[in-house]
């Protein structure tokens, strides 16, 4: 067993990196909590009947006037903080993961194809990427949101909120994947095993996905982690600005926006607890991303 661990370099580095271990644990805890929220949480924040104003504004358990049932206190509507956070994390994670997946599939396919075929197709994809780069991620996300608002009738808008956000964030992130995939593909194209495959007469699709793709996975994994963090941050920012998820189905970003009202009035936990969770989640994902980057690029160690 020890011998196996020693041989797999990535695993060995992981075991010897306390930061990575802690990050993985934190991320795992939050993710599991979010996934099992409906079963763990005390209260369903969406169910208006499950909480009452009488329980409102209760502080966390270590301060005076707290109710031990609500470990981290309640907000102004009487909702349990822990439950809100778990459900909020659920939404944040769902959107982040969905957006990241779409961006990955779209970006990698386009990047691979652009690198393999070159020529006109490559030029077109790169031009589109150039234009999109001129507009920073948050701008693209806001734009898509604005367009959706303009195009969709008001009632459908609410239901599709989550999907509009996911699409908006995905479209602002795909360029990163496409460029990296393309650059890595171009490197591989020069390698002899690709030349051999082309020369032997193998099908292009096979060459791209069976031969080239496994070899460009490294840098892509790093970007996937980093972009997951970006996606979550982006969603939080949009919700904070009031354009993301609304207060009745809040993500962590929305919770922070709500909490800001209480900045001056003393109910600090409504603001800072969701903030802490958001930061913990994103930091751990970024630490893991950094760790992956070091694994794939030994020279930076």
């Amino acid at each position, binding site marked *: 067993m020890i011998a196996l661990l020693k041989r797999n370099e990535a695993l060995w580095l992981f075991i010897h990196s306390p930061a990575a271990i802690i990050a993985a644990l934190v991320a795992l805890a939050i993710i599991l909590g979010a996934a099992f929220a409906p079963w763990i949480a005390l209260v369903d924040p969406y169910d208006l009947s499950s909480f009452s104003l009488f329980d409102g504004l209760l502080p966390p358990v270590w301060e005076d006037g707290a109710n031990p049932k609500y470990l981290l206190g309640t907000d102004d509507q009487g909702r349990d903080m822990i439950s809100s956070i778990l459900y909020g994390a659920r939404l944040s994670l769902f959107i982040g993961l969905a957006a990241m997946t779409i961006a990955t599939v779209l970006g990698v396919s386009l990047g691979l194809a652009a690198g393999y075929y070159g020529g006109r197709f490559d030029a077109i994809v790169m031009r589109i990427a150039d234009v999109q780069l001129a507009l920073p991620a948050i701008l693209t996300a806001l734009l898509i949101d604005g367009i959706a608002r303009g195009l969709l009738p008001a009632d459908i808008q609410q239901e599709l909120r989550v999907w509009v956000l996911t699409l908006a964030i995905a479209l602002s992130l795909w360029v990163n994947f496409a460029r990296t995939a393309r650059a890595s593909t171009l490197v591989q194209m020069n390698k*002899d095993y690709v*030349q*051999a495959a082309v*020369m*032997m007469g193998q099908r292009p699709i096979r060459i791209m996905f069976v031969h080239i793709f496994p070899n460009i996975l490294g840098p892509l994994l790093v970007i996937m982690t980093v972009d997951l963090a970006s996606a979550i941050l982006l969603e939080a920012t949009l919700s904070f600005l009031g354009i993301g998820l609304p207060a009745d189905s809040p993500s962590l970003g929305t919770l922070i926006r709500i909490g800001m009202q209480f900045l001056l009035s003393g109910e600090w936990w409504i603001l800072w607890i969701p903030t802490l969770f958001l930061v913990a989640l994103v930091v751990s994902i970024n630490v893991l991303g950094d760790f992956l980057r070091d694994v794939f690029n030994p020279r930076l160690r």
Partner: protein
Amino acid sequence: MLTIKDLAVKFPSRFGDVTAIEDVDLTIRPGEIHGLVGESGAGKSTVGAAVIGLISTPGYIANGKITLDDTDLRALTPEQAHAVRGDRISMIFQDPQTSLNPLMTVEEQLIETIQTHSDVSTQDAHKRAVDLLEEIGIKDAAQRIKSYPHQFSGGMRQRVVIALALCTDPELIIADEPTTALDVAVQQQVLDLLRELADRRNIAFLLITHDIGVIAQIADRVTVMRNGKALESGETAQVLGRPQHPYTVALMDAVPPLDRKIPRFRLPVEDDIAAQHTTRGTDAQNWLLEGEQTPPTGLTVQNLTMRFRGTRTSLWQKPDHFTALDDISFAVRPGTIMGLVGESGSGKSTLAKVLTGLLNPSQGTMTLGDAPLPSARQRSRHHPSRRLMQMVFQDPYSSLNSRHKIGTILAEPLWLYGLVNDAGERRALATSMLDLVGMPADALDKYPHQFSGGQRQRIAVARAILARPKFLICDEPTSALDVSIQAQVLNLLKDLQATFGLTILFITHNMSVARQMADDMIVLRNGRIEETGASETLFTTPQAPYTQTLLDLTPAMPSTWAASNA
């Protein structure tokens, strides 16, 4: 002058400390060129790095004494050690392109170095720099000194590098593979220059290289290294001509001679693939011979021309065309090996790409056997030539997909060409084939990175042969390999060719290797054929002056040194 005793260098790793070199003894006198020769992984570069104190972290000197005249180099503080660098010991590296700072002019880099070690005014430093460049052989030095590194050609750049190492009047220069990246002609000039500097300025050189011909040409004394240990040391003629240590003997046996053709390289039994055949390989052999119903196939090429459009660099001028191949015509006789020799830029690789359908020629026709060979755009993926013509590439580290198991790699041609439709049978055939190239059966489930360069190259050959080709193109198949491994692979190719009646186009830049392998020869230069003909005739009585030049410039060991080793 330089004395090294019991030198040991270690590198900490997750498996504990790895010993890079140990028990290394060496002495160099002033004005002596001392060659340090060995195959890859021998530790030669580590010795050089240890002397100048530039071992890559986290390596460290574990033991030993290094003295330069009276100075104990290990006893110096980091500041003192850094002061010694350049002043008394200098080092030059393999690639002149990356050795120079691209953002500074040559003048700036020279003056900076000069002023670091002596107290002279900028004007004086400038004059010294110009004089030095003239001495080194750069004409118009006063003008050219103001240029940037990328404005010099490869050979000139290496001279600039040498000038930079020289400008501080060091006692010892460590040269780590200084001519490996250069063309034969340029290599010769640089070697002559090094010899001259040693003689005239009494500078000692530690010449690190894997090329025995280079050592034979200019080294006074030589030390042979293997696996981190120094095995043999002495006068060059004696060590190379009448070696004592068995490893050196085997090494010299593996060096392809330039002056004659030997039928096979003599190798120790444990390294010789042919001697290691077991019955495991007979299945593959029979299967391959089964497919051998047709007679050997030849290749004819007529008026092949390849023109590339240059990249646009100026607004007003259209880009120049670059002619890589200019009206090439030749014929490869069925069942023979045709050697194609040329320096870098001669068009050899372009030719290989045109033949295999990776590049579309501007003009010309090709014929494989009886059938016309369509050019790239016309050649469909299912055309028979895709199977009949296979290739072995130069770089063993990139010709196998590092994410695929060996079994997958070998099975590919079998199912791609519909040769064997059952997965189990394919696996059995692949196992059997591995034996034919001298690899163990358990290699099937391993990944390429678990094998050495030579082993990977053998797997690449196995992959090519499994397609049951008639024509094999070998593009510098051994240029990236050590001499002894090269001998092994060349023997293998010869054997396979004889057994299966293959026709081979063997591309190389190394005249000695070409002589050993080829029945017929083509000499290529700047896209044109300089000379063709039967191999032995070409080597003994070359017609074209260029061929003669190539033969003259190839560094080789004088045959007088060897005391009947053939």
